[in-house]
């Protein structure tokens, strides 16, 4: 049995409205991701080139922390939403918890908690802007130093 033209038009109209709603929801739900990395910084002779993922940070790391060689121990990228909580590169010894407190058009306000051996070492609040990394000087490990890098992408 054929549908009437009016019924088909109504169905097409409703589908279009549904598609538009999906587009609006998708645009609203779109969120940036936070890229995090745990880096071991050491001084070696001769120095070794930085891993590909750290190329853009190597200059800043050398200047700030005074090391010439960097190893990427772990990295991941997770979507960050307001109120969301993310454990950054959890390890057996070092934990960094990031909780998104607020979000604006230009940055995220986050609360950071750094645990070393399950002991809270520092609590901090920071604003993270897209493409502007935050470096956190962590505990020493052997002859090197653990450094966290957080960047909104």
């Amino acid at each position: 049995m054929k549908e009437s033209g009016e019924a088909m038009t109504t169905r097409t109209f409703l589908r279009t409205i549904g598609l538009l709603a999906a587009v609006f929801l998708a645009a609203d739900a779109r969120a940036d991701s936070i890229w995090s990395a745990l880096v071991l910084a050491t001084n070696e002779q001769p120095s070794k080139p930085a891993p590909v993922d750290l190329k853009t940070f190597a200059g800043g790391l050398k200047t700030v922390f005074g090391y010439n060689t960097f190893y990427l121990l772990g990295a991941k990228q997770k979507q960050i939403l307001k109120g969301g909580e993310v454990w950054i590169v959890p390890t057996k010894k070092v934990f960094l918890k990031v909780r998104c407190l607020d979000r604006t058009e230009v940055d995220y306000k986050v609360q950071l908690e750094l645990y070393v051996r399950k002991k809270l070492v520092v609590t901090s609040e920071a604003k993270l802007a897209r493409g502007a990394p935050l470096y956190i000087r962590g505990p020493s490990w052997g002859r090197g130093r653990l450094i966290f890098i957080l960047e909104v992408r």
Partner: protein
Amino acid sequence: MKNFEERYTAWLDGALDERERAEFESTLPDRAEALRDAADWKKLRGLLRENLVPVAMPHADFLNGQVLAAIGRETSKSVPLAGGWFPAGRLAWSGVFLLTLAAIVSAVILPHIGRSSDEEQYISQVLAAHTGDPKQGAYAFAAPGGKGAVLWIQDAGDIPADERIR
């Protein structure tokens, strides 16, 4: 009761009977002049009947066809659209089109407007830092380049090299 004009017209046409005609003529101020007028009228009417004959139209069917076709074209042009200028369907689709446009603009175009110039002003910064042990110090300063930030924990602890951290 007929008025004078009606009785005069009937008198000219000879439509009055004897009694009416005599009665009407007795009311005329100048019967002789009226009779002359009547004679002139009969003469004029005769001339009109002789000369005003219908003229036969050459190719009348073709001309009628052309006229009907022109009427048909004009009629089709002037027929108004069903539902007038703003039928519900047209309004609905106009609304859908505008919503689509708004969705595209808000989802695709707006996020990129001004980003390149504003991004230069986007910086990360440490707003506050508290250490669990008062002996440990925590400092914050801008990273090289000015966009990034550094949270410097003076003594975050030591992990021996022989301990696995992962």
